[in-house]
């Protein structure tokens, strides 16, 4: 109680006397940065996820071979979620005598919950978004289907026992998928018409899906509920198993944004550490006096902790409010670019996270100095030079290191990366501290050879030895993390530019009969397009792994495993490794391997089934059993939109099996006629228009890029402010001595030059080490974590060094200016 009263009184007095301004500023800026970045990351990734989830036409999708129980929809409704149903089945559609095998998709009102349907009035025409679904009695067939059966808008199609009228041509639907499991062209119809077709009979193969969408937290809750309540045969999908192209982009953006959060946390830690040092510095005398007057150690510690806690509370509230306002302003400014009508609402999460992180950082970085502070002996009241005993190293740095490690772990959640980052950071700090000591030593030597201003400034560096080293470490770390973020942003952006060049393949052709393969390629070339690689495509089923049979409809596996193991697989064989494939384990086959039953797996497939090199996979291919051995694992860049397969066979194994070919090509927009010609000339070839999928991916990438950019700028500004605040915190140490110098007759300009010299030296060195550290860390993070190409850039290094020097010098100058301008007497008397 006593401690609380005294703590609050001291606090309010120190506040009024302006003592706490700098400390509070540093803390507030730190919390503002932390929560601002947190809010921004949360909301922008929600916007990105929203975009990405259009590939499911929903936020979550529950699929099954049996009708989805009404109970799920009731539960969704109770939770305020939107929902819709789809049922799809394969059936032959007739227009008179002309027929085509079709993927019938019956949908209910509300479909699609995410993304949009594009339709047109003639096949292969550019689509326009449409609201709603086909009315009862209406159907929207895909271009290919309509072209194949020779119909147009107004044609009546026979579907099972029903006759339905074509009112629009379906150009694309958001959930058509990028994996081409469904080979037949689709047709969308109203679910109300499904019974009339009499196609759904016991034994008929129908896939049912429940679509659900809503706000993030509600969706997360519902997903958890579904996971608990769903039946064994029901498969849950959400954005995490959306198309690989979109998933890649979203994951990378998410990783970058977490990194930005981590950077803001580290900056926060720097601010707190500097502020705490200053606090300790200023309170040595007070604590010694309190002890002299009879205060116990526990009491003085309580006072200090309470003071800092109160301060933290104020900083947390004000900072969080500022952080919120700043990101709100930023989001409103870029709303047009984000192309969303309403911004995802902020959740309370970043505020809580910001608060908890602030307290954790405070505990890690401020508590040790405070404990150190209360160890100052009472004797200091008689002997000014008596300070606290040297800190116990473990106690002084242990908590800070622990907090930083926990935070890094929290962000990366990857053992290897964590170890590397932790070790890297430790090495970096050690180098900084070492360089600091070296500088201090060198500065001491240099003193005799430079002008008075430089001598004064540089002498300061070596005199305030510990202080200089600490500042170097703080500035160096701050500049390093900001540079790192900048470099990674560049790598990410240039990768995204590379990923989606304008003339990416936008049509996939599947089911090309072997006999027509060469004709087809020539025909496409004659139309002015070029096919990408042409690969055989053979259907097969994985039946056993290492001799253990996989049961049909295997239960209880991880969602994906279940899917992979039961789904029919598309297999291929090829001699050459695609340029968008990289071997991550094992070896690609050589000529000598031809004819050996070897397979190469994509990492997605290998990971989801937990397979290893040398495992034996048994396939059922057209009734023939083939035993294979896993020879290599490939990392596939799916976003090249070339034919790629999870499972590739060595040549000489599957040649005799009946199969077809597939390829992709780029057609300039407005080639409806030529494609109709193609469809007519090769009736058995399935054509997939993936323009809309590309647009989806582009939209996701654009948003992700924007997110990365804006979060970067925000973090940069916050970081600069934190560093400025840190420089400010060294102000009062300079106050006294610059007054001294002026009293001794130094001109104002000499003192200012001295200060500039000191900070310039400090800033340049910090920048130098930071640039080196950032380049190294960026190399590692880019290649290992984001799996991108790293290009060394000189510019960030120069920016780091020059920026560091400029930042620290101007910060120092700003901080000292008012001091230098004061009449010396006032400072000395204070």
């Amino acid at each position, binding site marked *: 109680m*006593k401690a609380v*009263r*005294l703590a609050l*009184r*001291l606090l309010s*007095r*120190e506040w009024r*006397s302006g*003592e706490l301004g700098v400390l509070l500023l540093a803390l507030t800026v730190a919390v503002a940065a932390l929560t601002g970045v947190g809010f921004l990351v949360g909301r922008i990734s929600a916007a990105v996820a929203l975009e990405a989830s259009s590939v499911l036409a929903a936020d979550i999708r529950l699929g099954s071979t049996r009708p989805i129980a009404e109970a799920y929809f009731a539960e969704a409704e109770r939770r305020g979620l939107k929902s819709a149903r789809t049922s799809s089945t394969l059936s032959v559609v007739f227009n008179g005598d002309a027929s085509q095998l079709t993927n019938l998709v019956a949908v209910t009102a509300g479909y699609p919950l995410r993304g949009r349907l594009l339709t047109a009035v003639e096949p292969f025409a550019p689509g326009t978004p449409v609201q709603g679904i086909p009315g009862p009695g209406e159907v929207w067939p895909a271009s290919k289907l309509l072209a194949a059966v020779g119909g147009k808008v107004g044609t009546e199609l026979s579907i099972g026992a029903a006759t339905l009228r074509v009112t629009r041509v379906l150009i694309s639907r958001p959930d058509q998928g990028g994996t081409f499991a469904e080979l037949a062209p689709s047709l969308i119809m109203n679910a109300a018409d499904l019974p009339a077709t009499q196609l759904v009979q016991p034994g008929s193969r129908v896939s049912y899906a429940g679509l659900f969408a809503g706000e993030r937290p509600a969706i997360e809750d519902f997903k958890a509920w579904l996971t608990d309540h769903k039946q064994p045969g029901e498969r849950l999908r959400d954005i995490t198993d959306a198309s690989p192209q979109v998933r890649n982009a979203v994951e990378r953006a998410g990783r970058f944004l977490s990194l930005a959060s981590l950077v803001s946390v580290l900056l926060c830690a720097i601010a707190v550490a500097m502020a705490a040092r200053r606090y300790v510095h200023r309170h040595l*005398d*007070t604590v010694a*006096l*309190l*002890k*002299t*007057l*009879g*205060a*116990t*150690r*526990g*009491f003085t510690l309580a006072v200090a902790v309470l003071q800092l806690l109160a301060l933290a509370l104020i900083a947390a509230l004000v900072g969080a409010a500022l952080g919120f306002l700043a990101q709100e302003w930023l989001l409103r400014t870029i709303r047009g670019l984000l192309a969303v009508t309403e911004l995802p609402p902020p959740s309370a999460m970043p505020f809580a996270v910001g608060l908890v992180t602030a307290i954790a950082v405070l505990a890690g970085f401020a508590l040790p100095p405070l404990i150190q502070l209360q160890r100052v*002996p*009472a*004797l200091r*009241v*008689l*002997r000014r030079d008596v300070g606290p005993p040297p800190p116990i190293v473990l106690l002084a740095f242990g908590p800070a290191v622990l907090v930083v490690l926990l935070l890094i772990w929290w962000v990366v959640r990857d053992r290897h990366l964590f170890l590397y980052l932790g070790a890297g950071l430790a090495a970096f700090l050690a180098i900084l501290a070492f360089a600091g000591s070296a500088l201090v030593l060198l500065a001491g030597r240099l003193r005799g050879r430079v002008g008075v201003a430089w001598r004064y400034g540089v002498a300061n560096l070596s005199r305030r030895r510990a202080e200089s080293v600490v500042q170097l470490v703080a500035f160096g770390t701050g500049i390093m993390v900001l540079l790192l973020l900048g470099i990674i942003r560049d790598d990410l952006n240039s990768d995204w530019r590379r990923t989606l060049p304008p003339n990416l393949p936008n049509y996939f052709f599947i089911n090309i009969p072997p006999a027509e393969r060469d004709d087809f390629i020539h025909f496409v070339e004659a139309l002015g397009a070029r096919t990408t690689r042409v690969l055989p495509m053979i259907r097969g089923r994985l039946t056993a792994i290492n001799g253990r049979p996989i049961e049909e409809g295997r239960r209880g596996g991880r969602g994906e495993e279940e899917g992979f193991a039961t789904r029919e697989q598309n297999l291929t064989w090829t001699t050459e490794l695609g340029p968008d494939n990289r071997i991550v384990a094992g070896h690609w086959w050589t000529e000598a391997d031809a004819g050996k039953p070897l397979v190469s797996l994509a990492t997605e497939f290998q990971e989801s089934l937990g397979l290893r090199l040398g495992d034996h996979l048994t396939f059922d291919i057209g009734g023939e059993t083939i035993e294979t051995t896993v020879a290599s694992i490939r990392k596939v860049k799916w976003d090249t939109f070339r034919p790629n397969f999870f499972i590739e066979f060595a040549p000489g194994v599957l040649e005799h099996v009946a199969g077809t070919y597939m390829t992709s090509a780029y057609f300039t927009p407005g080639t409806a006629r030529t494609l109709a010609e193609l469809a007519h000339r090769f009736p058995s070839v399935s054509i997939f228009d993936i323009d809309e999928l590309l647009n989806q991916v582009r939209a996701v990438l654009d948003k992700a890029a924007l997110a990365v950019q804006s979060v970067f700028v925000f973090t940069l500004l916050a970081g600069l402010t934190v560093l400025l605040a840190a420089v400010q915190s060294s102000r009062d140490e300079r106050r006294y001595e610059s007054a001294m110098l002026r009293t001794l007759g130094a001109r104002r300009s000499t003192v200012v030059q001295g200060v500039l010299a000191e900070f310039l030296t400090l800033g340049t060195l910090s920048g130098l080490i930071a640039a080196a550290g950032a380049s190294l860390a960026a190399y590692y993070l880019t290649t290992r974590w984001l799996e991108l190409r790293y290009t060394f850039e000189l510019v960030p290094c120069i920016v780091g060094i020059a920026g560091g020097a400029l930042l620290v010098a101007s910060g120092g100058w700003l901080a000292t200016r008012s001091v230098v301008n004061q009449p010396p007497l006032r400072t000395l*008397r*204070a």
Partner: protein
Amino acid sequence: MSSNPTPSTHAQANFDSVLKAENLSKQVSSPEGALTIVDDVSLSIARGESVAVAGPSGAGKSTLLALLAGLDTPTSGRVLLEGTDLTRLDEDGRARLRAERVGFVFQSFHLIPALTALENVMLPLELAGRADARRAAAETLARVGLKDRTGHYPRQLSGGEQQRVAIARAFVTAPAVLFADEPTGNLDTATGARVGELLFELNASAHTTLVLVTHDRELAARCARTLRMEAGRIA
């Protein structure tokens, strides 16, 4: 909060001598080897007595004061304050004892800059857990002639005024012993004289034991006894 000395520390309870030092020594290690700053000092000070400690700069006066007040621990020997052996107490124990029984006045005032004059005087009362801190502090401030300055911060006060606040703070708890280390050292002669005056005045009326380290011959002369210190020894 109050310190109840354990029976063992009462070993040689002698309530006539409120402060007693036995073979007190303090050595520190320095680059030139061990340095003896206080060398085998024994003394006894009676209740209500005023003792001046004089001597050249560097003689070890402040160090002796710190040892007597329990701000520092001796290398050997012991200090008895009202019968309590300070060397047997830990840091917190000595702090509690100081809160109850000891007052200080320093050369450089040592007021807390963030607190007003009144709050600075209230501080030791609050630390000792006294209830009527505000009233007692205001009264004491009035006695040192700073009735109108209670709400001022240290930096708004002159040196002499600051030292008077410090004197009020030292006396407000009615300590058994008051230690003063060069209380006039930072003041000009006239102000110093007035501050010295005040110190003795309050000391007389409060029957406090005064241990005064000073260069000032006049101030030393006003004490009942003067101990001369030279190179760590009482001459």
